[in-house]
Structure formats: C-alpha cells, structure tokens
C-alpha cells in the first residue's frame, strides 16, 4: 500500500487515509522515538495506520515528502534552528514529542546557571563546544500539537496518531495526575512520606510514576489552572523543604513560567 492512498484499514466502514510521517530529533536521549519501537505488540498495527518515511534511528531511506513531523528534543545550536525551520516548512502538522521538545526537559536545567561559559568549561575544560541556552521548539517555530512526558507514553502517542488518521479532535486532560492516581486506588504518596507533584501536573500518563510508588516530578508540565499555592501548602504540611519542591518543579521545565523564570512560553 502506498502512502497517501486510502488503505485496507477502515473506521466505521470508511477507508482510512494513511498519512506520511517523519521522525526527527534534536538535543535529547532519543528515548521518545524509541518508545515507538518499544511497543512490540502494537507496532504492526501502528505501521498500518501511517507510512513512516523518515526515521533515522530505524531506517536508512529518507524522504522530504511528509505530512506529519514528530520532533523530539530541545534546541541548543544554530544548525538545529535551521533544521527545525526546514522541517516546519515541509510538514503540514508539526508535533512536539516529549518534555525536551515541549519544555526543554532536563536539558533546560543548565539554563539555571547565569554563566553558560562556565557550564561549558565544567564539562569540556579548555576546549569548549558550541552550545547556546536550551530552547523549546515553540521558541523557534509554530507547534501544532504537543505530546507531553519524559518519556512519552506509547499508548498516548498511538491514540493521538489514530485520532489524526481518522480526523478526530485531540483533547488532552485538563485535570491533574492526582485524579488518575485516585482512580487507580494508589495510596497517596504524601502518606508514604514521598514528595509528589501529582496535584498540579497535567494528567494523561495514568499516574505512571505514583503507580510505582514514586512521586511525580511534573514531566508533563502544569494542568490547566494548577493550584500552586495549595501545592506549596501540602508540601510544607508534610515537612518537605522548599528545595525539594523546587528540584521537582524545575526538573523538566514545564513549570518554569509559573516559577517566574526560564524560557518556556
């Protein structure tokens, strides 16, 4: 089956359009792309929905003719800016894949140092390497859709791709991880003596970390209208230091606009 043709897959009896998709990565661990290859049991179904024409981590052939671009990673170098702008021109839909692309991810932690030359020197000594402050995709180009998470949840990616293929609108949860955590009947992590950003972080991960009794670090960024004041109060009530809260709030960059610093829009 050729890309762009309607294929054998149907939805409510209507043959599905099979979009051409491309995967690209900038400064990142490439883990979000790997999550696509990590869904062994549904990979074949996924591939019947879309035609992958660009995926450097998995295939040699490349094509500049694609409709949806999934872009992973944050931007730190001029050549990355150029590459991203080129991708934007070719793609009808540009999807930011994962926390690095959406918020800068753990990479943006280096932005907390005022003197980036010292950061460079710390790692490379007398032979610094070209690298600027960490920027998100949205700092450079228009982003049509964001898929949050570090890493992204493969089920969520599949659902979003399916929705694109059948032309259904995509609505991300507006409520926080806490809601999913309660629904999963987990013991509240605060009761177990663990700090957690579940009350303010956007849901959609099915409370992935709390399900393993690990507190949320906010990798999906803030829910709609997060109650930061109350979050702070809970943390204080359970005896966690301000530093512990800050460590988590600044870890993936999603909360930087609420913290009154950082680069995220």
């Amino acid at each position: 089956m050729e890309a762009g043709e309607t294929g054998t897959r149907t939805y409510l009896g209507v043959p599905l359009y099979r979009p051409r998709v491309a995967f690209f990565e900038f400064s990142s661990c490439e883990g979000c792309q790997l999550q696509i290859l990590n869904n062994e049991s549904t990979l074949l179904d996924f591939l019947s929905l879309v035609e992958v024409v660009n995926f450097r981590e998995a295939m040699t052939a490349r094509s500049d003719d694609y409709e949806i671009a999934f872009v992973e990673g944050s931007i730190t170098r001029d050549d990355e800016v150029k590459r991203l702008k080129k991708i934007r021109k070719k793609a009808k839909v540009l999807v930011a894949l994962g926390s690095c692309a959406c918020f800068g991810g753990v990479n943006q932690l280096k932005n907390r140092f005022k003197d980036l030359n010292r950061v460079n020197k710390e790692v490379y000594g007398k032979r610094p390497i070209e690298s600027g402050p960490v920027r998100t995709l949205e700092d450079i180009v228009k982003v049509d859709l964001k898929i949050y998470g570090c890493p992204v949840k493969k089920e969520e990616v599949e659902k979003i791709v399916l929705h694109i293929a059948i032309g259904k609108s995509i609505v991300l949860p507006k409520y926080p991880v806490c809601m999913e955590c309660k629904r999963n009947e987990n013991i509240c992590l605060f009761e177990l003596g663990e700090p957690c950003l579940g009350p303010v972080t956007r849901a959609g991960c099915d409370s992935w970390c709390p399900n393993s009794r690990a507190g949320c670090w906010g990798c999906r960024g803030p829910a709609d209208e997060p109650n930061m004041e109350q979050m702070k109060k809970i943390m204080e009530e359970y005896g966690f230091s301000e530093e512990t809260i800050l460590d988590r709030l600044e870890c993936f960059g999603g909360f930087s606009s609420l913290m009154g610093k950082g680069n995220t829009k």
Partner: protein
Amino acid sequence: MKKTCNVNIKPLTRVEGHGNIRIKIKNGKLQEAKWEVIETPRFFEAILKGKKWDNAPWITGRICGICSIGHTLASIRAVENAFGIVPDEQTRKLRILLKHMETLQSHTLHLCFLVLPDFMNTGSVFPLIKTHGDVVLRAAKIKKLANDVCDCIGGRRMHPTRTVVGGFTMLPEKEELRGFGDRLKDIIEDLMLVAELVKGFNLPDFTRETEFVSLKGEDSYPFIGGDMVSSDGVRMREEEYKKMTNEYMTDQSTSKWCRLSRDSFAVGALARLNNNFEFLHPAAKDAAGSGIGVAAVEVPRGILYHSYEFDDNGKIVKCDCVIPTGQNHANIQHDLEGIAEKYAAQGKTDRELELLTAMLVRAYDPCISCSVH
C-alpha cells in the same frame, strides 16, 4: 576497476544519535577516513552541580533512552558507594535481573532491528515484516519479554520509576516473577534460532588487533561493580576509572575520546566475552571513600562509569560520567582507517564502501547522544 572512492554518510542511520563517516580514496590510496560525532552536548555533569543526591539517578537516567536502566543503576551505585550503603541480597538480585533484561532488549534491538537489514539488503526492518515475518516477530517476542520484565521490576522500561538509592520503591509479586520465569524458558529456543540466523550471515572480512576493556567477573559474568581489566593486562579498581579511561578532546567529535595502553580500546559485548571467558582471579571488593562514590556498570555497549563528589549536605559538587560509546569512538576511528585502507586497493564502488563502513560503525551499536551527553 574503480580505484577512486568518495564516501560521505551524513548522518549515519540505524544507530542512536548523530555521527558522520567520510572516506576518500584516490588511485587506490587512502586519503582520508574519518568518524565524526556532531551530536549536541546537554551538559549533564554541569546540570547536577548543586543538586541533592536523590536527583542524580532520576536526572542521569535521561542521558540515554536506550540504556536508561544502566545509567540509573550506575548512578544509584555511585551514590550508595559515596555514603557506604550496601544493598541487600534481594535488591542486588533484582537489579542484576533488571540489568540483564535491559541488555537483552538492547542487543535484540541492535541485532534484529538495526543490523539485520544490512544482511537482508534493505534499508530498515520495516520491509522485512512482509518478507521475513517469522524473524521479525521472533525478535519482537524476545524484546517484548525483556521489556515486560523491566516494566515489572523497574516500574517502566525506559527511565525506570521504582529504582532508588537503597533498593526499590515497590517490589514485583512472586506470581509475576514466576510467570516471567516460564516465558524466559520459552524464549531459549527463539534465542537459539536468532543465533543460527546470525551464524549464517556473510560477515565482511576485516580484523584488527584490539585492546578490550570490561569488568572482570568474580564468579559469574560481570555486570554491576567490581574490577576493570583490559586484554593488554591492565587491572584497576572501580574508583580508579579515570586511569582506565583517560578522556581527552579531539576536533572531530563533540564526544570525548578514551585511550589506555594503545591509541584506542574497545568496550562492549565482545570485550566482556573476551575478558571473562574463564575466571582466573577472584576480584577484590573495595569500599569507597567518604563523600566520593564511583560506580562501574556493564551496560549493553560496555562499561559505564558514574562518579559523584558530595559536600556535607549531600549536594553534588563534582559529577563525571564516562560513556561506553565515548570509550569506543577512538577505536571506531582506527577500525575505519583500517577497513578503508584494506579495501582502498580493491576497487570497491562508493556504494559498497558506504555499506561496509556503515556496517562497521553499526557493529559497535554506538549510542552517540549518550556519549556526548
């Protein structure tokens, strides 16, 4: 016979991260053979400065999407070594099982999804789903099982959630583990079939005498901690990792390079095999010094070192991560020169040389973003 060749692969595909291969041959003479790493650095060592100890495993696991479990375990061990925490037997056993499963899924990804297309004359694994469905499905079955065990023990196959300093936030149920025991026995036959397939590969004819570096096992194959050895006879303790790696910068790479007894050495599955085929010496166990913790863990691509120095408040003042692929880069460069030299006189076409050199680098299963971090 074409004796002039120009190969310019930019960037190499079916590997993790961004690297270029450049070969120039004129009249049968090798003019240039270069392995360039162009990946952007993310400065993890600087990022951790001033952060409390509990941030380290969570953040450094994100150095790599493929071997995040290895990074997390190395980070945890470095913290535990710094503070004199000795994990109990159950924790040690679960960690080693978790480590093995990451190695299994990573090697399966490398061999069956990334390398196999070279021997089947395709550009990716995707067309093989139609022509060699049994092979692809078998690989997917092995990979899925390994990943499922990682989910069960680590909480998540990538960037694990349950692995923390001191042990685990949550333990797997006995029944779950029993189920995996049965599934693991079941895939032995699949693994043998993969081995048969690989035996049938027509491997390019190229060898180069190499120094191999790995951990040294005490009574079993080594994966977490212990001494490092090289096939040239060097043996060092975990905390002496700097003398084992000797990192330095080079113009052709944003990743640091390493050397030991020669210009380059190799780490990874082959090094582990060469150095641990028989167990000659029992390794000495060492306790780490106060405030500084070093960890050496055999991740899929070779020895990974994490080293942290803490102040009195448990905050990191110095962080150092030495990545297996970083240790391999210099060796890849020398291999590349060797293979290009060998085939220069034979009049290979650009396409043939492109494939051969790409296969050579791919054989190392490089994790390039990891090596630059």
